[in-house]
């Protein structure tokens, strides 16, 4: 009986479970059989189901403590703010994913006359957000503009992207042999639930030294799906995506290995014509609410007079459809097997359209027992900086496999100092 090994993907990279599972199979078989890759025998027909859920949040500056306080609705103290400030650079990034779903996988006795093909069908609910913000934007938002009296705060170079959609995925994998590795592809139908894409090219906030006037030079545009239709049942867009992978076996220093190329989420979503497009290129000047007559004070202490004046206004608003390209991931990894107990995987991935840097990771796995595997992970890049994690996978109740990992243990152990948090949980079972 093969042991199912679920290897956690790098930051933001969560290959669809079926392929992952198959990868596990490929990896498990060698582990059981003294790490000799015998591809001449294909596995017997079976069916399998898997439940999974994973989330992560990472940032180059926003500490785990800060993020947890924001998410739980707590009070952000000055110390919490200062610890983030110590990590800020001119441009800072953050990103998060939340995925959960299920996949059903089947290997029939014969699939169009072939017995080396697996097919799968799965459903996933997905949330992705990412962004870039400036140091000054954080300071103005969290500390206020008083510190910028007599200066200009550069709030520009800010981007934010929120994408929420549901995915119905269908895939097949063709099992490889010693000459070539496995390869496969999947096709997904996407239901767009919610999207917001904000791009602030220029935002200069100038506060005079005595506070008598505030100027804002703003150039931004924003696209947003229909705000009147929200929630899991909202159908604000439709789309499609593809996933592909290809494995190349190799031998190094007498140890077998596999090089794998992955492309995930290559696709788009088309949002409906109730979507909003807003473009601003304006210069605002504010020197207080204007009172024209002292009698205005008779009825209300602060009258609703002319609050500001727009010096130059270039404002466009419309409702129109638009297209969002998914944050696709391109990944290369190399996995080497050392005997029956050890596996070393290293890889690099890059996420497009996601304000993300290249992500580097190294994963060292150890089979404590044939049915239990633990891993240690080190990673750098993506939305954050350095982090370390761990993984546990074990077979339980004969036909079930459980997988738990986190690539951000440092964020949990030292939330005030490190950024990042995330957990992956998976439960699979054969029947």
């Amino acid at each position, binding site marked *: 009986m093969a042991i199912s090994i679920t290897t956690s993907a790098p930051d933001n990279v969560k290959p669809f479970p079926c392929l992952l599972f198959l990868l596990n199979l490929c990896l498990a078989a060698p582990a059981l059989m003294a790490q000799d890759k015998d591809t001449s025998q294909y596995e017997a027909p079976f069916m399998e189901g898997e439940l999974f859920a994973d989330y992560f949040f990472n940032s180059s500056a926003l500490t785990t403590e800060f993020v947890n306080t*924001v998410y739980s609705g707590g009070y952000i103290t000055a110390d919490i703010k200062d610890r983030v400030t110590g990590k800020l650079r001119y441009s800072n990034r953050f990103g998060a994913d939340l995925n959960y779903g299920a996949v059903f996988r089947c290997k029939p006795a014969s699939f169009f006359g072939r017995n080396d093909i697996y097919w799968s069908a799965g459903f996933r609910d997905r949330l992705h957000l990412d962004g870039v913000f400036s140091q000054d934007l954080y300071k103005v938002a969290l500390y206020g503009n008083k510190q910028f009296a007599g200066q200009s705060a550069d709030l520009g170079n800010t981007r934010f992207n929120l994408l929420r959609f549901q995915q119905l995925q269908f895939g097949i994998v063709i099992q490889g042999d010693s000459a070539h590795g496995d390869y496969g592809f999947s096709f997904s139908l996407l239901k767009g639930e919610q999207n917001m894409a904000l791009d602030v090219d220029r935002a200069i906030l100038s506060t005079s030294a005595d506070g008598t006037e505030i100027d804002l030079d703003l150039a931004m545009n924003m696209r947003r799906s229909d705000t009147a239709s929200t929630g899991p049942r909202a159908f604000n867009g439709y789309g499609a995506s593809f996933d592909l992978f290809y494995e190349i076996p190799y031998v190094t220093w007498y140890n077998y290995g596999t090089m794998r190329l992955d492309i995930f989420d290559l696709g788009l979503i088309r949002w409906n014509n109730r979507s909003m497009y807003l473009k601003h290129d304006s210069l605002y000047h504010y020197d207080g609410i204007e009172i024209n007559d*002292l009698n205005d004070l008779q009825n209300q202490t602060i009258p609703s007079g002319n609050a500001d004046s727009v010096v130059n206004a270039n404002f466009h608003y419309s409702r129109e459809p638009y297209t969002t390209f998914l944050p696709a991931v391109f990944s290369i990894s190399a996995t080497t097997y050392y005997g029956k107990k050890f596996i070393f995987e290293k890889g690099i991935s890059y996420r497009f359209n996601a304000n993300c840097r290249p992500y580097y990771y190294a994963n060292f796995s150890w089979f404590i027992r044939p049915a239990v595997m633990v891993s240690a992970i080190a990673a750098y890049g993506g939305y954050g900086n350095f982090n370390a994690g761990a993984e546990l996978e074990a077979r339980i109740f004969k036909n079930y496999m459980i997988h738990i990992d986190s690539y951000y243990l440092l964020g949990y152990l030292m939330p005030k100092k490190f950024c990042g948090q995330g957990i992956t949980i998976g439960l699979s079972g054969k029947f």
Partner: protein
Amino acid sequence: MKNPGRPLIFLCLCIWGIWSCRKEFGRPQWDIDGLAPIVTTSLDFDNILADSLLQENPDNSLTLVYNNNLYSFTADSLFEIPDTSIDTAYVWQFINPLILNPGDILIAGAPQNTVYNINGAQLRKVIIRSGYMKVEVKNEIREVCKVIYQIPLATKNSQPFSKLITIPAATTSGPSFFTDTFNLNGYTIDLTGPSGNGYNTVSYSITAYVDSAGAQTTVNQFDSVGITNSFLDMVPQYALGYFGQGIYASADTSAFTMFNRIVDGTLRVDSVNIKLNVINEAGIDARFNIGSLTSINSRTGSSVPLSHPVIGSTVNITRAFDAAGTVIPTIYSTALYRWNSNIIPMIENLPDKIGYSVNAEVNPLGNISGSNDFIYYGMGLKVNLDMEIPLSFAADRLTLVDTVDLDISAEAENVNSATLHLYANNGFPFETSVQLYLLDGNNAIVDSIMPAVNTIDEAPVDANNIVIQPKMTRLVIPLDANKLAVMKSTRKMMIKIKLNTANYPQYVKIYSSYKIDVQLVGDFNYHISAR
């Protein structure tokens, strides 16, 4: 392979369960230090006082214009149309019963006249502004009766007043009663009677009969139909006639609101021009005597009576002219200057009331108009003061007070503490001290806002006391958490301003170009609760 049905269902249920249990973001909170302008204003005297009170002179200086109505004498002082009730009855006196058929006449409808007693006035015609006629009927006849009430000489849109009333039949248990009212607004009533030579006379007729659609009925001894019609609350829009002779004396005070907000200090004015006007808007000859006119300051208890030739003298004023509904009044006017009266001390007394005693005699020569006196509603004889005070004055600790509503609970809800900076670029030739008091529900002072240093400097002036250029003053107003809490709960604020003109006691003239630019900047610690 096993049947995948149950596992598939389990998977689907798990997906649905997780999907349905999405957790929403909480509402994080934090505090920031903000620096932002709150309000900005540029005030000239037009903004401080109502536009209608200021007048610009050729040299761009300003003059304060004010009108105060001292005394008025209107139609209801001359006469009043009393409420009047008229009873009409039909009674069968005889022992033998009377058979009445449908259509039989009960009351024949002969013209009747009622003469009003209107306080010595002899009215020939009135147009009713408001009033009504009330009809009350008691019917002892056991059949429906009809009543036609007519006032031939009361017309509206050329139609005479006529009402048909249906009276329900009496029953075996007793008579029936009927009451109704009819609006007389807009009716023109000729009060000269059928001959055309009378006065105060209303001519009317009542006709009562058994309903033509009814049945034959029997009337027994003492069965009756009684009708009472009343003219009530009659207010004339116009009256024509002779209003009699009479002397109407009045001694009272009239509110003088120009200096309402001044509670202390000294004001010296360079000059005052006042016209005392006696206006006759009624068609009656009159004779006036102003016994006294006094400036009264209730706060200090000081009174300054007017000294001027008009006091104690008798003024004859002829009747107004009625040009087809447009009244052209007759006006007697006399000017009060500093050289013919003590009007300056009267004004510098800062009165809140003007006391007066006036005797008005109407028709002193009798009915010389041939009963063609007239008066319209709201018009009559009036005495008023038209004042022009050039804004050239000297003030020493002149203190003005006003109370305004204050509700900053919404705006300041999340302000933890603040320091307000008041920037005042003063282009007026007087310095100003401002204090703001917070009041409780009993209008008692609970706290103040302004610090000890609260003076806005005056603009520098040249040798002619003309402003050279504005002067900037910055006031710092700290508001800690306790004071803010009091402000948030307060609903009224008293503003107290103290003025000192430049080079007192020299007069400074106010020009239309003078203004003060004020900007309030907030340096605050603010609590944010994000969504």
